[in-house]
C-alpha cells in the first residue's frame, strides 16, 4: 500500500520534501545525531570530574566541553526535539489536517536548524568557545575564543524555532478537521500551541540580544560593557527574557506527550481536560514574568528579586495541577505497562523531583545559597532530561508504530528505560547533595571532600549511556525489521490512530469529521 515513506524515492525526495511527516523524520535524524554529540560531551565532562585534579582534559578544554554540551543540547536537541520532531509528525494528524499550514516554511525551518548548527559547530575549528551557553557579558565580549560563530548559529537556529512556532499556531487556527472545536483538540496540540506562543514571542528578543552581542564583539558598542557605560545586568535581563520561557518551550510539549500517554495506556478520558488546557496556557503566559529568578544574586535589586520570586511561585500552581490531574486520570483506569507508559511514569517521578526542587529554588534565601551550584545543575537536569528527554523518548516509542508501521521490541524498550531511569537518578541525585554542600557549577576541578559523590555521579552517566545505546540500537533495528504494526496498536482515541500505519501521503484518505470530545 502506498504510504508517505514509499510514495516517492531517492535522497532528493527527502531533502526537498514538503510533507510534514518526512520533515519530522529529518528532524528526528538531526535531533538524535546532535543528542549523541551532546551526550558524548557530557560523558567527557563526567569523566573529567571522576577524580580531583586534572585527569583527561585541562580546564580550558573542560570549559569548552561544558559550553558545547549546553549549547548543543539546548539549541539543537531539546528545543526542536518535541515540537519540531514529534509535533511536526503528530500535530496535523491529530487535528485531521493534510499538512501544516506552510509546508515550505516548515522545510525552511529545518534548513535553518541545520545551517545554524553547522555555523555553530564551525567554531570547533576556530578554537572553540568557552562562555557557557549563557554568553554572559562582559566575559563573552572579552574572551579570545570563537564566540561569534556560536552566537550567529544560535541566531539562525532561533529562526528555525520561530518559523516552527508560527507554522503551528496558524495550522491549529486554520486546519482543524470539521467538528474539531478548540476544546476538542488533544492536549498535545494544546501544549504545542502554548509552546508556539512562547517561540514566537520570546525568540525575537534572543535574536536581538545575540545581534547586540555580535556588535559588541565586532565594534565594542558598549551596550552591555561596563567599561563603556553599559550595564552587564541588562544583558542578563534580555537573555533570560528569552531563556526562561525557553525552558517552557522544552517542557510544555513534553507535558503534552505525557497527557497523551497517560490517556492511551489508562484507557480513560483525561481528568480535568480544561484545567490542563488552561494550565498549559497559564504556564506559557506566566513564564514571561519570572525570568529574574535566575538573577537573585546577579546584582539585581532586592525588590526585583522579591517580585520575581512571588511570580515564580505562581508558575508552580498550574504545574502542580498537571501532576494531580495525570494521577487522577490513572485512577480506576486499565493500566498497561508498555515502554511509552513507563517513560510517562518515569517523567512523573523525575519531574516531580525537578518540580519541588524548582519550588525550593524560587525561595529567595535558599537560592542565594545554592545558586550556581550543583543543586541548580541537578534541578535543571531533572526537569530537562527527566522531563523533556523522557517526553521525547516516551513519545517516540508511542508514535513509533505510526511513523514506521512497525513495532519495537517491548523487552528491549523496557530494559533501555530501566537503565536510563536508574542511571539518571544515580547521576543527578548526588548532585543535589553536592550543591547543598556548596560545590559550584562549571568547575573543571573541585575540592577533595566532593570526590565520592562525583564518582557516583560519573558511574551513573555510564548507565545512562548504556541505556540510550540499548534503546537506540533496538529502535533502529525495529525501523527496518520490526513486526508490522496495526493502525491502532494501543487502542488510543486520538485522530492519528484512525489513519493507517504508516499514514498515506496526505494523512487521511477521507477527511475525518469530529463529533466526540477529546479522548472520549
Amino acid at each position: 500500500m502506498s504510504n508517505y515513506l514509499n510514495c516517492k524515492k531517492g535522497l532528493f525526495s527527502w531533502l526537498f520534501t514538503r510533507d510534514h511527516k518526512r520533515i519530522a523524520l529529518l528532524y528526528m535524524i538531526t535531533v538524535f545525531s546532535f543528542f549523541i554529540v551532546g551526550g558524548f560531551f557530557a560523558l567527557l565532562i563526567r569523566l573529567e570530574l571522576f577524580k580531583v585534579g586534572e585527569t583527561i582534559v585541562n580546564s580550558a578544554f573542560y570549559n569548552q566541553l561544558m559550553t558545547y554540551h549546553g549549547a548543543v543540547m539546548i539549541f539543537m536537541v531539546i528545543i526542536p526535539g518535541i515540537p519540531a520532531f514529534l509535533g511536526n509528525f503528530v500535530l496535523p494528524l491529530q487535528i485531521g489536517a493534510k499538512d501544516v499550514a506552510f509546508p515550505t516554511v516548515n522545510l525552511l525551518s529545518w534548513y535553518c536548524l541545520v545551517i545554524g548548527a553547522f555555523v555553530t559547530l564551525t567554531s570547533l575549528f576556530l578554537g572553540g568557545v568557552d562562555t557557557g551557553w549563557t554568553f554572559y557579558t562582559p566575559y563573552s565580549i572579552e574572551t579570545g575564543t570563537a564566540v561569534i560563530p556560536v552566537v550567529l548559529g544560535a541566531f539562525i537556529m532561533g529562526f528555525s524555532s520561530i518559523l516552527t512556532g508560527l507554522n503551528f499556531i496558524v495550522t491549529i487556527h486554520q486546519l482543524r478537521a470539521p467538528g474539531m472545536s478548540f476544546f476538542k483538540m488533544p492536549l498535545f496540540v494544546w501544549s504545542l500551541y502554548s509552546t508556539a506562543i512562547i517561540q514566537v514571542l520570546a525568540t525575537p528578543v534572543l535574536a536581538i540580544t545575540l545581534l547586540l552581542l555580535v556588535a559588541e564583539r565586532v565594534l565594542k558598542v558598549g551596550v552591555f560593557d561596563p567599561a563603556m557605560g553599559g550595564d552587564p545586568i541588562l544583558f542578563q535581563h534580555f537573555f533570560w527574557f528569552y531563556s526562561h520561557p525557553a525552558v517552557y518551550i522544552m517542557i510544555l510539549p513534553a507535558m503534552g506527550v505525557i497527557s497523551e500517554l497517560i490517556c492511551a495506556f489508562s484507557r480513560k478520558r483525561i481528568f480535568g481536560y480544561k484545567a490542563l488546557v488552561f494550565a498549559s496556557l497559564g504556564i506559557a503566559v506566566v513564564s514571561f514574568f519570572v525570568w529574574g529568578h535566575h538573577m537573585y544574586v546577579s546584582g539585581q535589586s532586592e525588590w526585583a528579586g522579591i517580585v520575581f520570586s512571588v511570580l515564580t511561585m505562581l508558575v508552580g500552581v498550574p504545574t502542580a495541577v498537571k501532576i494531580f490531574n495525570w494521577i487522577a486520570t490513572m485512577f480506576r483506569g486499565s493500566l498497561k505497562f508498555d515502554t511509552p507508559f513507563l517513560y510517562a511514569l518515569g517523567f512523573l517521578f523525575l519531574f516531580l523531583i525537578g518540580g519541588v526542587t524548582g519550588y525550593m529554588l524560587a525561595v529567595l534565601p535558599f537560592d542565594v545559597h545554592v545558586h550556581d551550584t550543583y543543586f541548580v545543575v541537578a534541578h535543571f537536569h531533572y526537569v530537562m532530561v527527566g522531563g523533556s528527554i523522557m517526553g521525547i523518548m516516551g513519545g517516540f516509542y508511542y508514535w513509533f508504530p505510526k511513523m514506521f508501521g512497525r513495532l519495537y521490541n517491548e523487552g528491549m524498550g523496557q530494559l533501555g528505560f530501566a537503565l536510563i531511569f536508574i542511571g539518571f537518578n544515580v547521576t543527578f541525585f548526588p548532585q543535589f547533595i553536592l550543591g547543598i554542600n556548596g560545590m559550584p557549577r562549571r568547575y573543571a576541578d573541585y575540592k577533595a571532600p566532593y570526590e565520592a559523590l562525583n564518582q557516583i555521579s560519573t558511574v551513573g552517566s555510564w548507565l545512562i549511556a548504556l541505556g540510550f545505546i540499548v534503546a537506540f540500537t533496538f529502535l533502529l533495528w525495529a525501523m527496518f525489521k520490526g513486526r508490522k504494526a496495526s493502525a491502532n496498536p494501543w487502542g488510543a482515541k486520538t485522530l492519528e490512530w484512525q489513519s493507517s500505519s504508516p499514514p498515506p501521503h496526505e494523512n487521511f484518505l477521507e477527511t475525518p469529521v469530529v463529533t466526540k470530545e477529546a479522548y472520549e
Partner: protein
Amino acid sequence: MTDYVARLEKLEHFLIGISFLVCVLIVIVFVYFSFRYKRKRDDEKLEESSHHNTILEFTWSFIPFVIFMGSFVWGWILYSDFRREAPRDSLEIHVYGQKWNWEFVYKNGRKTSNELFVPVKRSVKLIMTSRDVIHSFYIPTFKIKQDVLPGLYTSLWFKANRKGRFEVFCTEFCGTGHSTMGAKLKVMSLEDWNNWLKTDPYKNLSLVEVGQKVFQGRCTACHNSTKEKLIGPGLAGIYNTQRELEGGMTLLADENYLRESILNPSAKISKGYANQMTPFAGLLSEEELSGLIEYIKSLN
C-alpha cells in the same frame, strides 16, 4: 557559623521536609494506582468514573498555592534580612575580583590576596567590585553569595560566630581559571586580628622573598614556578631567553619585558597563549614589582 545560617537552616529543613513529604505522598499514590489498576485482561470493562470534579481540582490548586505563598513570605523575610544594610559599626573590607584571584584591601591599607582575615563576633561588610569580568563571591559555610561586577559596587555582610578557616568560591563562570579562583576566610579573635593587621607582611624579607610572596598570592592561578605550562607559561627559565611572540617576532625576555608583561600583558603575547591576563598596572607597589621580577629571575 552565623545567626543567618541558623535561621536559613530552619527554612531549609522546612523546604526539604515538605518537598520530601509531598514527593513521597504522590509517589505512593501513583505506585499504588499502578498496582491496583493494572490491566488484567485485554478486553476488561472499566468502571464508570468521572473526568472532572471542580471541588477536587480547586482544592489541589489551592493547597499548593498556600504552601507556595507561605514559603515565599518566609523567604522574603529572611532575604530582606540578608540584603539589609550592614550594621553601622561593621568592619569594612574592599574586595576585588580579577581573573583569577581575590584581593582584599583593609582600611589601614593592608592588602592580602586569596586570604580574607576577619575578627570573630564582629559584623564584616565586604564592598566588592571586579577588575574584569563578572565573578561571584560565595562562602558556602555561611550560605551567602553575591555577584561581583565591574563598574559597580555590590556588598555582602556577615558576622561569624566562631573562629575557623572557611572556603570561598567564585561561582560565576569567569574563564579558564574559574575553578581555581578560591580564597580562604580566616576568622580569628579580635586581638589576634588587630595584631595581624599591624604586621608588615614584607618585614625583614629579601626582595626575592617578597616576590615569592606576591607570586603565591596573585600568580599561581595561571603560572607555575616550574617550566610546566598552566593557563599561562611556567616562569622557570624565562628570564634572559628569547621569547617567540604571536605574529612571529622574537625578543629577549629582560627585566623590561617582564615588567611590561606584568603591567600590560596584552602588549606582547607569547606564542601559543590567549590574551586573557588582567593587567596589573596600578595594582602592585614598586617594591612588589621588583620583588616579582627578582623572583622570576631566581627561578632560572
